[in-house]
Every structure is written in structure tokens, then in C-alpha cells.
């Protein structure tokens, strides 16, 4: 009898909610498989971002995702939202246009370190200065992945890349320090293995009024790790073992040095008026006068 019962269970179709991917309503499933390489961390960060969108409970119609160019920049192409894959470095001014023209939209910029901090660096500091109410997610994989592993503004000093075959002579940005100095009002850093903290940070960042920035450290197995003779799993282990969670750390401690230990956490979460609020206030004042 027990056997018969089991057979009946096996024949009946699994409940619909079991078959469905929990993020299916937010993914353009017809565009899968994605382009990200095996071992790449972007997918994990992307999932955390979509989970965060779900967890906010905000109507999906009130979200828009904007990306620049690069591996992370493909994020906008996989999310089932009004999504924009723009020019290299220009996701932030595109997002700024959306936000100022329709402040009801929650605009998420999902892009990489090369896009946001080399070619797009000027836009980043100015959007932070303005406290533009957008959420900027930077996946920092320390390299230009899509073009084949050239040195980035985040590549560690003396690391090898396709364009620094003898080692990177330059020093990388300390991104949280840059964000805080520029005027960002929410700044956090996590790695792709801290998916729960990351998701929580994304939820906080989306709900935060003002410019929020999350740096997410992520491995690029093909174009960074391999060239620098680092095993991808060792890099991921460093994310686990050589990181220190220290909320509200001093920005000068936030440089990336896995020997010393990389500081993670929420560094700043403050309130400051946003440009759309200020404009609305100005209009109201002029209407009343």
C-alpha cells in the first residue's frame, strides 16, 4: 500500500509554485542562458538584486534598471522591468534623467567597475554630490572582463592584466571612500558570497531617499584570476576569510588589501534632501508666492 501511495504522488504534477523559479516574474527567461562565464559572480549579485526588488514589496512598475557597458552591464537585459542598456559609462546620467523627470520611479543602476569608475567616474561623483535618489550597484571584479582582461581603475597595484603584462603601475580607487567624499548618503560594501547581507543592503538602498552606493566584490575567473594565477575558489575563500565586517568604518581603512583584511559593511546611512525633493519644494514655494 505504501508503494502504491508513493506511485500516485510521483505521477501527480508538482505544485506550480515548486516548478516556478522564485525570481521568474523578474527575469526575462526567454533570454537565458546568460552570457556570464562559469564561476563569475555577477549572476549571484543579480539574483540578490532581484530578491531585494521583490522584498521591498514595491510595485515592479515603479522600478527601472539602467546599465552601462560590460559584463555587469548586461544585467539590464535580463530583468523583466523597463530596462536600459546605454552607452559605456553613461548609465548614471541616463538614470538621472529618468529620476528627475519621474521621481516616482525607483531607478537602479547595475553596472561594473570599469563602466562606473573609469569612463563614467565623473558622472558618479556628481550624482553622489547631488544626492540623486538612485541606487548604484557596482560589481567590482577588478578588471575589464568583457573586452578580455585589461587593467581597470580598480585593479590592484602590480596585478597583471592584458594591458599591464608586467604589473599594474597604478593604484586602485578606494570606492567607498570616493563615494562618501563625493556626498553619497548610503554606502555599503559586500562580496558576492554575502548574499543575505547583500540582499538586505539592496533593500535598504532602494528604500533609502538619496544616492545609495553598494560595491560588491566578485571574482572574474577567466580574465582576472587566471592571469594572476589565483584559483577562483581561493579568491572566494578570501572573500570569506580575509574580510572584516565593520559598519561605519573609517573610509581610509576601506582600501582593498586581502593581506590586511578587506572591510565590509554599511559605512554611511544619512539623510540629506534629494534634487527632486528640492525642486518640488521650489515649485511649491513659487506657486504660493
Amino acid at each position, binding site marked *: 500500500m505504501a508503494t502504491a501511495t508513493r506511485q500516485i504522488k510521483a505521477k501527480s504534477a508538482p505544485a506550480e509554485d515548486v516548478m516556478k523559479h522564485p525570481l521568474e516574474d523578474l527575469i526575462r527567461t526567454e533570454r537565458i542562458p546568460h552570457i556570464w562565464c562559469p564561476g563569475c559572480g555577477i549572476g549571484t549579485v543579480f539574483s540578490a538584486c532581484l530578491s531585494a526588488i521583490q522584498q521591498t514589496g514595491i510595485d515592479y512598475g515603479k522600478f527601472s534598471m539602467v546599465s552601462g557597458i560590460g559584463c555587469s552591464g548586461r544585467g539590464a537585459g535580463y530583468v523583466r522591468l523597463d530596462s536600459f542598456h546605454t552607452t559605456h559609462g553613461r548609465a*548614471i546620467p541616463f*538614470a538621472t534623467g529618468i529620476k528627475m*523627470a519621474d521621481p516616482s520611479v525607483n531607478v537602479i543602476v547595475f553596472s561594473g567597475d570599469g563602466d562606473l569608475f573609469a569612463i563614467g567616474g565623473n558622472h558618479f561623483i556628481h550624482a553622489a554630490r547631488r544626492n540623486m535618489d538612485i541606487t548604484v550597484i557596482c560589481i567590482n571584479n577588478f578588471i575589464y572582463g568583457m573586452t578580455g582582461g585589461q587593467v581597470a581603475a580598480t585593479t590592484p597595484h602590480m596585478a597583471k592584466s592584458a594591458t599591464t603584462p608586467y604589473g599594474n603601475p597604478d593604484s586602485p580607487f578606494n570606492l567607498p571612500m570616493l563615494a562618501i567624499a563625493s556626498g553619497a548618503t548610503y554606502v555599503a560594501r559586500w562580496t558576492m558570497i554575502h548574499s543575505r547581507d547583500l540582499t538586505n543592503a539592496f533593500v535598504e538602498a532602494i528604500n533609502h531617499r538619496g544616492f545609495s552606493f553598494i560595491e560588491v566584490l566578485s571574482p572574474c575567473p577567466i580574465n582576472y584570476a587566471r592571469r594572476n594565477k589565483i584559483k577562483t575558489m581561493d579568491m572566494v575563500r578570501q572573500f570569506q576569510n580575509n574580510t572584516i565586517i565593520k559598519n561605519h568604518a573609517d573610509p581610509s581603512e576601506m582600501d582593498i588589501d586581502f593581506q590586511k583584511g578587506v572591510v565590509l559593511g554599511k559605512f554611511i546611512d544619512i539623510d540629506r534632501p534629494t534634487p527632486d525633493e528640492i525642486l518640488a519644494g521650489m515649485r511649491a514655494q513659487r506657486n504660493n508666492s
Partner: protein
Amino acid sequence: MEPKVLTGEHFINGDTACAEGAIAAGCTFFGAYPITPATEVAERMAERLPDLGGVFIQMEDEIAAITSILGAAWTGAKTMTATSGPGFSLMMETVGLAVVTETPCVVVNVQRGGPSTGLPTMGAQADMMQARWGSHGDYEIIAIAPSSPQEMFDLTILAFNLSETYRVPVFIMSDEVVGHMSEKVVIPKESKIKTVSRPRPSGRKDRFKPYKPGPNGVPPMPTIGEGYNVHVTGLTHDEQGYPVMSVDTQKEMMTRLLGKIRNNLNDIIRTEAYLLEDADIVIVSYGVSARTSYTAVDMLRETGIRAGLLRLITVWPFPEDQIRELAKKVKGFVTVEINMGQISREVERCAGSRVPSYLVGHAGGTVITPDAVIQKIKEVF
């Protein structure tokens, strides 16, 4: 507070008239970066837009300025930016994004002497080829050349209407002289101003294909938050808007993008003929140089030379057929423009070997005098 449309007679400069034309056309978002001699457009917009519920934002550079207006356009807003040569150069990559994503927007270039920093406070018409070819790849855009502050008002409205109709960036190729000269500008009643808005989608949102063309080749454009969940990319894309890296998709997309303009030339091209019917010699001109050319035609007629003027109101797409037709019956062409030969090359190309074609131009910094035009015509014909 001032109303949206400032109906009445004004004595204002071309830049200010341009801003008023934009507002009358329904522009509610202006992204700016200061640059001489276009700054007055931004200053006027900064003063006017907040009271009208619109947005003025001064961005960190011209790349950001034009990119911001594309983002804003996808919220349903009519958007504009204004610049001059150096800023126009910086905007070029994003012009391509606007073309390929079919994002309507208006870009004003109040031209000054170039190249590089050039003559910031002095006029030129030397960005005409850049307007046509400045971004990479093949594409079609629309460019309009106003000759007076009144036209800065009227043609800015036209620019918005064409941009919305065809979902292409439209350039207003003004120049320092027209931008800074003050003249009478008559602004009609709001009810008399014809404005056009982009085609809008209807029907099932889950089956919507954002790049499936409508009857004139232009797809309807949704806005963020309507539930169409569109993906918009600068990559070569199919009707769904999804990137497809293939020869066939590239061909299909490019054919339609070019066709939107090339198949609607009669609706887009605007020229003005002055004493052309019996003309032996045709002056082709646009913008401030057209003003010179009217006078030159009159003076030449007084001396018995049958000159006429073809004024290009829209410079791009170029009125090829009109020039080819004229070439069959006239002695030759003279193109009057403040550069070292740009539109004159187009005239020469269309005139072919049938009749000669000459340039009256100079390197920039001042207008061309009617005497220079007359002297050239007397010399070569």
C-alpha cells in the same frame, strides 16, 4: 508666474526664442552644460521650466546633458539640450544611442568658429557635416537651420514635432549670429500652435514588441512604468528590443531606421524658393547666410543677373531631388555658408557634371557679405 506660451510680440534674441519655442512645443525636460554662444537657451529654460512643472538640470558635461534627456524621454517627456561645437562633439556617441533606441529628443547647436575651442563668441556654420555624420555607423537624422529669432521659435516647434513623429534626434543647427541677434518675435496663441506627440502603444502588454514598426516605419513608444517592460539597448536588436548579433538582424534594423527618414522625405524636407522660377543662377543657403543671400539675389537682379535662392530650412535630409531638378535648367549653383565647403559638397554632388557649383564661404567669425556673393557670381558666370 508667466504662462506656458507667451502669446504676443517680443524683442528677444534667438537663443531665448528657441527656449520659448521648446516650451510651446511641450518640452518639460532640459539637460544642460554651459557653453558660449548657447548658454542663453539654458538660462531661459532654467528660469521658465520649474514654474511650468518641468525640470531643468545642469549636468557635469555635455555627455551627461544629452544622456539625461534620453533617460527623461523614456518617462514620456519631450526633452532638449543646447550646446555649441565642443559640446556637440562630446554628444556624438549618444546621438547614435538616440538613433538606434529611437528616442525622440532635440539638440540645439548654436554654432561658433572651430575646430577645437576656436572662436567661442563668433559665428560659423561649420558643424553641418558633423551633424550628419558625427556619430559612428550609418544613420539618418533631421537637421533644421533657422535664419532668425522668429524661426528659432517656429522651427524649434517643428523640430519637436518631427522628432516625436519619427522618433529621431532632431538638430537645430543655429549659429552665434542668429542665437545672439535680437529681433521681433511673434508668439501665437497656444491654440494656434500645432504640436505632435510620439505614437503610443495599445493592446496586450505581454505581447508588445517595442520595435515593431507602425505604418510610417515608426514603432509606438511606451513610457517607463506603463507595464510594457521594454528592454532598450544600443546593441543591434530585433523587434522585441533584444540584442541579436547577426547580419540579418543588423540589416533589418538598419533598413528600417534609415527608411523612417528616407521613405518620408516629402513630409520632412522644407525649403523656400525665392525668385527661383526664372533663375539662371541658384544660390543655395541656410541659417544666417540665407539672409545674406536674399540681399545678394535682390542686388544681382538689379544688375540684370537672374539669380534665385533655394533656402534650406531642413538641411538634413538633404533635398537631393530638388537640386537635381534645378540642375537640369540652370547655369549653375553657388552655395553660401560660413565654412570652407560643407553643404556645397552636397550641392556639387547632386548637380553632378551637369552644371558647375561653387562655394562662397569663409573660415568663420563673421557673416558673409552680399558683396562677396555678388563678386563670386560675376567672376565665375
